[in-house]
């Protein structure tokens, strides 16, 4: 039963993918992402991407097992799900990757974005990383993922709609305005350099949520200049380094989420590329669960003020005491 089913109430596609039930969950005997075990036969590797063995979306999908109609719409789950291995070293957290390697990862993400955006059946390319067992990872090896979707997902659609309306009414970019407001206020800014600004947004939903915006306006990674790619790598390392040092725990759980314009051929020049980071760790020994209010109403309750979260992150060093992995 791999297929997309339309929710006529919330007007969004859901992915039904029973193949993912077969995924290994935190195997203890060996890691399938380590070199020479399962996915990568070589004894060592630098950065590798591959199509997921248990994909939610497939290049050549099977026919859906049931017929839809104009109300209960059904589509084949055509798309691409890739895994990005950041390092062959199972033990190194992404925060400890060298700046050179992080910059190479930016090149790899951009390359995959470019190539997948050229597929005629793809409308949106989503790059993300789940880290930590509290987030729900099924494998601990340092890796991210990439979903190339045949539709624009709901949050992206809403964000794009807001950006389009702001552009039409104000003749300016919604996200550039947020950058200006956060720079003026300053108390929520966690880090910045000449190209990027990292801040806890005024409207943060989740613990230690950080947004990383390029100061220059462009809609996707494809417009990154060399110096901006380096700055983006430095910004990611800084946020992840602060996350890792924030509490004395082994593996700070977080999600890294890339937000880019769709690739469906329409004009999205008003959109502003950025990254968002979220955690569930609201204190050293406390997890924020997505419970009744969040799940049932999509209204988020934060027990930490954005200003307090920004202050905590500002006071936390980004440097990692364990040193960095050789970038190769």
């Amino acid at each position: 039963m791999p297929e997309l089913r339309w929710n006529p109430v919330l007007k969004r596609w859901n992915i039904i993918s029973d193949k993912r039930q077969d995924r290994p969950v935190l195997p203890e005997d060996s890691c399938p992402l380590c070199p020479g075990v399962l996915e990568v036969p070589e004894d060592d590797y630098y950065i590798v991407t591959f199509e997921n063995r248990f994909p939610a979306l497939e290049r050549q999908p099977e026919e859906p097992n049931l017929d839809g109609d104009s109300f209960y719409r059904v589509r084949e789950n055509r798309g691409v799900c890739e895994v990005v291995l950041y390092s062959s070293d199972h033990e190194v957290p992404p925060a400890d990757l060298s700046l050179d390697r992080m910059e190479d990862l930016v090149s790899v993400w951009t390359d995959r974005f470019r190539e997948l955006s050229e597929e005629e059946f793809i409308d949106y390319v989503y790059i993300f990383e789940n880290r930590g067992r509290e987030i729900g990872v099924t494998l601990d090896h340092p890796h991210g993922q990439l979903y190339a979707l045949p539709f624009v997902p709901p949050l992206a659609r809403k964000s794009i709609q807001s950006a389009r309306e702001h552009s039409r009414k104000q003749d300016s970019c919604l996200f550039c305005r947020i950058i200006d407001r956060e720079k003026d206020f300053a108390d929520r800014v966690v880090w910045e350099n000449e190209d990027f600004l990292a801040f806890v947004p005024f409207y943060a939903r989740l613990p230690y949520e950080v947004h990383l915006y390029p100061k220059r306006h462009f809609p996707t990674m494809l417009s990154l200049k060399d110096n901006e790619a380096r700055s983006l790598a430095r910004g990611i390392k800084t946020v992840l380094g602060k996350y890792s040092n924030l509490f004395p725990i082994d593996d700070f759980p977080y999600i890294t989420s890339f937000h880019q314009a769709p690739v469906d051929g329409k004009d999205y020049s008003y959109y502003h590329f950025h990254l968002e980071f979220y955690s569930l760790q609201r204190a050293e020994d406390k997890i924020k669960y997505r419970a009744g209010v969040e799940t049932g109403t999509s209204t988020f309750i934060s027990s930490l003020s954005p200003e307090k979260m920004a202050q905590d992150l500002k006071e936390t060093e980004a440097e990692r005491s364990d040193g960095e992995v050789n970038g190769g």
Partner: protein
Amino acid sequence: MNRTVEVTKVDGLKKEKVEKEDGRLMIYYRPREDGEDG
């Protein structure tokens, strides 16, 4: 047996596309060595 289908370059990286035995695409990205032209 995995099969190399294309070798190109991306920024400072050598990019090797491989078709896995089961047909899935895999890509190795490696730092280019001095003088290596992808």
